[in-house]
């Protein structure tokens, strides 16, 4: 049976195999839909809402919605672009994202998206939260004021028995992602490094590492995020 499906993104006809999400299908067709919480290999969970698109005048998240035949998707419209920019700005003001003092600067996906969407100043007032830093693990630091609660660490960093190193705590405005106090004590080196790598921002920091790449040679210094996908 033919599993090929056809749909449009901003009027461009794209074809893909059934079973892919819209983000994946778009990527295969050289179209970049921005994401933050989405992580290749992990089950998507539309937390950040960055990949918001419009189908049939309804907002959907492209990372969780399977591509279907005949869909007409709006992605880079003025409306959607402004919503995405708002979300970036919202994440900036709700944390303490002072880029010059952050180990992840230049490799940070939130920062890169702000560059892409040309954020000069957030439209929302700064909140300056004080959520503290958990430095109890010998290998990792968890800087809560930089966390965007994207769940990437929760989904990808597990021990051999499948237990999560990271988990949500509280709810609503008080939501945080915490490192398990027991498991964090002896997290293996490679897993700790992976945790830092998988974090899109500078919330998970491998201790005694940072600022080791000169400005100009970091991931997003010269190339915008998503440019590796766009044709």
């Amino acid at each position, binding site marked *: 049976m033919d599993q090929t499906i056809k749909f449009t993104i901003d009027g461009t006809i794209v074809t893909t195999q059934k079973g892919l999400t819209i983000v994946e299908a778009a990527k295969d067709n050289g179209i970049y839909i921005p994401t933050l919480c989405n992580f290749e290999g992990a089950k998507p969970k539309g937390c950040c809402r960055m990949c918001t698109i419009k189908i049939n005048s309804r907002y959907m998240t492209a990372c969780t919605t399977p591509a279907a035949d005949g869909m007409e998707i709006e992605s880079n419209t003025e409306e959607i672009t402004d919503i995405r920019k708002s979300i970036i700005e919202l994440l900036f003001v709700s944390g303490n994202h*002072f880029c*010059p003092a952050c180990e992840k600067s230049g490799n940070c996906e939130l920062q890169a998206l702000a560059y892409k969407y040309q954020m*000069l*100043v957030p439209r929302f*007032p700064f909140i*300056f939260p*004080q959520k503290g830093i958990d430095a109890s693990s010998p290998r990792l630091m968890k800087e809560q004021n930089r966390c965007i609660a994207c769940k990437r660490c929760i989904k990808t960093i597990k021990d051999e028995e499948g237990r999560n190193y990271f988990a949500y705590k509280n709810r609503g405005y008080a939501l945080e992602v915490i490192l398990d106090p027991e498991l964090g004590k002896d997290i293996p080196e490679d897993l700790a490094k992976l945790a830092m790598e998988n974090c899109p921002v500078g919330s998970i920091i491998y201790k005694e590492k940072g600022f080791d790449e000169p400005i100009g040679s970091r991931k997003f210094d010269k190339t915008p995020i998503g440019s590796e996908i766009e044709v």
Partner: protein
Amino acid sequence: MNKKVIATTSLAGCFGCHMSFLDIDERILDLVELVEFNKSPIDDIKVFTKRVDIGIIEGGCCNTENIEVLKSFRENCDVLVSLGECAIMGGLPALRNGIPIEECLREAYLDGPTVSENKEGILPNDEELPMLLDNVYPCHEIVKIDYFLPGCAPRADLIWDALVALVTGDEMNLPYEVVKFD
């Protein structure tokens, strides 16, 4: 053509943005053809002597002097530009936001590891000194700001492009490489 008048200042900043300004290098000679400076550390004019077209602010507001200077810029300038991370979002000084001011002062003057010669526990309270604010404020939370140029420090090219755009009224380009937050 009348030259546009420019004023600049550094509030709670490190003068890095001004240094970056000077990094426009030889273009400064072109700039002098286009503009004249009024109150600014660049020409050392201390007070406004005429109406200013473009005021450029480096740094956020951490004390009453910052507030006073910023307000006088708003009064005397037609257009205000927040230059750099500190002016835009408080920057490094704003890392103290959320920490009670008593704790900050205690750390700086009484209990901090670098405090060595303050046996009497003196805290700066001379009335000649500006008073310290509870938080470090982004400039646009004190007065209306018209334009924002991010960076720590903003790239010289960004400053140059912005100035040319403001002086000529042309639209400004924002090339990817020049708009950065660090």
